[in-house]
């Protein structure tokens, strides 16, 4: 189990827009470079990409939560 941390402060989003499905659900599999979330800051939506492969075991933040730089955002069970 490892935690991916936010590189930016801002507002955390799990989906590309309010009416769309999340990029990935808990239990889903990620590969490095895969888009998992967005962080909005300075009027731009910045992509949060996986930097490891594994299974998303838990999101530590909800859609629309404020996030600080360095804060854990998702736990990954590395394969």
């Amino acid at each position, binding site marked *: 189990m490892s935690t991916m*941390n936010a*590189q*930016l*402060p*801002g*507002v955390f989003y799990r989906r590309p827009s309010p009416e769309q499905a999340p990029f990935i659900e808990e239990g889903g599999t990620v590969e490095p470079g895969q888009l998992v979330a967005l962080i*909005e*800051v*300075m*009027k731009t939506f*910045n992509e949060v990409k996986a930097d490891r492969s594994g299974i998303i075991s838990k999101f530590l933040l909800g859609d629309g939560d*404020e*996030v*600080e*730089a*360095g804060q854990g955002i998702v736990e990954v069970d590395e394969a």
Partner: protein
Amino acid sequence: MNEVLVRSGGLYTTVQDAGRDGHYAIGMPPSGAMDRYSFTIANLLTGNPGSTAALEATYLGPELEFTDSRTVAVTGANSSVTINGASAPMWTSLRVGPGDVLGFGPLKTGARPYVAISGGLDVPEYLNSRSTYKLTGIGGFGGRALAEGDRVPLGRAQDAPAEGTTVPEEFLPEFPDVVELRLVVGLCSYRLTENALNSFFDTTWKVTKDADRIGYRLRGGTIDFVERQQPFGAGSDPANVVDLGYPIGSVQIPGGNEPIILLNDAVTGGGYATVGTVVSADRDRIAQTGTGGYVRFNATDVDSAVQARQDRDAWLHKLRTVLSG
């Protein structure tokens, strides 16, 4: 031509110098480095005049590859700096050669690292400044933030301080959890009730996601305005006035609940009452306070504001002597 190659632009990295002063009357904000203190020191460490164009990054630093021998220095936000993947010190003259790569890990504290390179960034001047003003796309490197694949021209390298020259600890800025900002009350503070002004100073304000070179929007309290009849020409928001010039660093409170501090790239005038102005020396501290950070305002007067600026200049002058000694 000598240039530095941008392998990654980071989040928002722009060319900035000491600013495009003298054109405020035509609606042109000065732009320029937000944290003037850290920017100046980065230049001192690379042998450049203190106002030479350098890079200002935000949250995520850039990755830069050098094509010739240069002295480079990183100051400002407390960052994990690397050269060719190995950790390198901040606030220090670093020597790099062709193929060397300067990179950044996550920031520890602060919001804006500065990267100066000996010889400076030799982008064209616009109205006597190389500062980027992104809203209108002028100045800097194509009027925009750096992106992967850019090749930024460099000026002729000057004599730089010896490799390893380091800023003594007493000169390093602090990054407190709650940043104290000195504020000169006015010009339109008469629009606030007395309690509202006290409450403004008693509140610890949180920096929202809407915080950039244009302005910082804050949240944390509600400010009451004096009741009045809406003047001809003013909007209906109690915070509206008939048009007004905005000092740089001025604070307006649209809606009474979200103060905005206007900064280097802000509009020069508009229709909101500005209730106070953060003193210029403390704008350095705003620049290093990011989204999620906290600020408080302390009332001061114009004489103290001028003194604060002179103190900062004197402190930089002292550092210059120390570094050249």
